[in-house]
């Protein structure tokens, strides 16, 4: 055991991180050959949900703005896609562009009033959106199909796909989720990541550094709304159906739970969060249908108690037992005393620079 933890330089750590990501993606690509149709369907749903949680995490975890209303964007994206594909006869992929524009635009619009609101007041404003979603959907029945919802017929290219329908859907959602993860990790690194982190930690400092806080906040809302909208569209692609009951207030709260359980401000955490909030209620119902809520609730309490910082913190802590990233340039790898571990996350060195 004395060989552990291994010490590696930051450059080596980055390479290892890339390998880890590549390995996860490879497993993702291989899944259709290992899973049954139904589990594959569940996997697609989890990935679609993860895109929404990524979007919310961008806002909450990285931006420090609470939203209790991201279910609204999922509904907006899902319904836009469903209506375009049925009534207007669009194909799925062009509808994605419309979804991105409309839900991103809605996010931008929400960003403007959000500039004046903080904390709980912002939480209420976004909750208002979530609460209004279902009644509005029921009211405009001609467009949304009312309580019945909209059934989206499968396109020919999907049913006749050589891979099979479920695997094709899965691959589409998987690629989308990878792109979304890549997009979010780009946004939160480099200059934009620095700006967002500074706006989150102290707006006045941010402004004194010449960062346009209003612009960054509205941009975050727009990106976040766009990703949540796309999440809705991919969910509709997977399920082939959308109805008001699936986009109620609790969806928004579960999304937030997914962000916190997975890990605030973490891309991989969004995927873990999606797995937890999607599978845990089902597992709880399997254990005891009558007490599923109790089991789910107790599990949330337990997770929060055992894992401060979410699942991602736990994974990181386990990894540190095996692997320590050493800032080799500043001090040589010491043989006796433990060196300060440096986080591999790209945002970290930036924030240090601002603080110093």
């Amino acid at each position, binding site marked *: 055991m004395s060989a552990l933890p291994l010490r590696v330089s930051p450059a080596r750590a980055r390479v290892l991180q890339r390998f880890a990501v590549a390995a996860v993606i490879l497993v993702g690509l291989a899944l259709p050959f290992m899973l049954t149709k139904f589990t594959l369907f569940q996997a697609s749903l989890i990935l679609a949900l993860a895109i929404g949680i990524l979007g919310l995490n961008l806002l*909450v975890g990285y931006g420090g703005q*609470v939203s209790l209303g991201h279910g609204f964007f999922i509904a907006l994206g899902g319904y836009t896609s469903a209506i375009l594909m049925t009534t207007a006869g669009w194909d799925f992929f062009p509808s994605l562009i419309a979804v991105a524009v409309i839900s991103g635009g809605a996010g931008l619009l929400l960003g403007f*009033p959000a500039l*004046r*609101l*903080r904390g*709980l*007041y912002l*939480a*209420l*404003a976004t*909750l*208002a959106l979530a*609460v*209004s979603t279902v*009644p*509005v959907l*029921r*009211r405009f029945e001609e467009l949304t199909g009312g309580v019945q919802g909209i059934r989206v017929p499968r396109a020919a290219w999907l049913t006749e796909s050589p891979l099979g329908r479920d695997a094709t859907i899965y691959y589409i959602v998987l690629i989308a989720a990878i792109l979304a993860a890549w997009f979010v990790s780009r946004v939160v690194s480099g200059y934009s990541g620095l700006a967002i982190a500074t706006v989150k930690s*102290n707006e*006045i*400092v941010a402004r004194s550094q010449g960062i346009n806080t209003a612009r960054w906040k509205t941009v975050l809302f727009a990106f976040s709304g766009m990703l949540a909208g796309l999440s809705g569209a991919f969910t509709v692609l997977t399920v082939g159906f959308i109805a008001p009951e699936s986009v109620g*207030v609790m969806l928004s*709260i579960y999304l*937030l*739970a997914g962000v*916190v*359980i997975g890990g*605030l401000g973490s891309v991989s955490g969004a995927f873990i969060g999606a797995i937890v909030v999607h599978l845990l209620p089902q597992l709880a119902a399997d254990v005891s249908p*009558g*007490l*599923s*809520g*109790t089991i*789910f*609730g*107790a*599990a*949330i*309490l337990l997770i*929060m*108690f055992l894992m*401060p910082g979410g699942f991602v913190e736990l994974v990181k802590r386990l990894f540190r037992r095996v692997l320590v990233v050493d800032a080799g340039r500043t001090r040589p790898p010491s043989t006796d005393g433990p060196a300060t571990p440096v986080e591999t996350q790209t945002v970290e060195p930036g924030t240090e620079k601002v603080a110093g």
Partner: protein
Amino acid sequence: MNQLLEQIASGIGTGAIYASVALALVLVFRSTGIINLAQGEMAMFSTFIAWQLNQVGIPIWGAIAIAIVLSMAGGAALERLVIRPFRNRDELSIVIVTLGLFLVFNSVAGAIWGYTIHSFPNPLPGGVLEIGSFRVTLATVGTLLIVLAATVLLFVLFQRTKIGLAMRAAVDNPLSSKLVGIPTGLVLSLGWALAAGMGALSGVLVAPQLFLEPNMMFGVLIYSFAAATLGGWDSPLGAVIAGVLLGVCQNLAATYIPAIGSDLTIAFALGLILLVLLVRPTGLFGSKEVTRV
């Protein structure tokens, strides 16, 4: 004209209930700095306890009194056992913890008492008060009086007693409060106990109108959250005034703007609040947060 007055009066009755749950939310917020998503479910659970006690033969007011005392004990225990271990975490984590509590209370109540509706005996007299041609039910008047009395009691507790001073101090500056000998832990438990008692009171007041079932408080919770926000999260009086205003607005909108109908009233009410918030971002009676750079 009379119809208008009557609509306002019944709106005040509903609003008083929002006000009482809002008061519970504000109590928890002031003592622990979080919103308790489970507040409504705790109130529902307390109401079931009162109902069960009444079913086994205890007179309704006695049952309510016992339920309130039990709820206060339960609230304090919950703070001590479930919330306290999360004390040093970020607020969002604690909110998710209260989501866990929400699910547990909802599901346990469903498992014990089922999801079918029960009728809850109205503790208030059923008659109608007539002043000239203006009519208002005694239940509305009673609800309003009870909530006002509870508010006044809380106000006196907070502003005129040593305990209240300790509670305000513990929230304002936990470290200094500890240094001057305030048992901050006890104070936090007391905050949760008061909130749970207030919730129980609102539950038994609303149950005769809504019917008793595990999901009865969810809509009320959203309105109360809105009322607390409109009033300003650090102002109990603001929460009460905003709750009553909200009840009146909701009633008037449902009656006089047919395009809104009963479905969209909640959206309308929340939209109104948003407009107010855009002008006054800290609510009607909230004090502005001052940050030191």
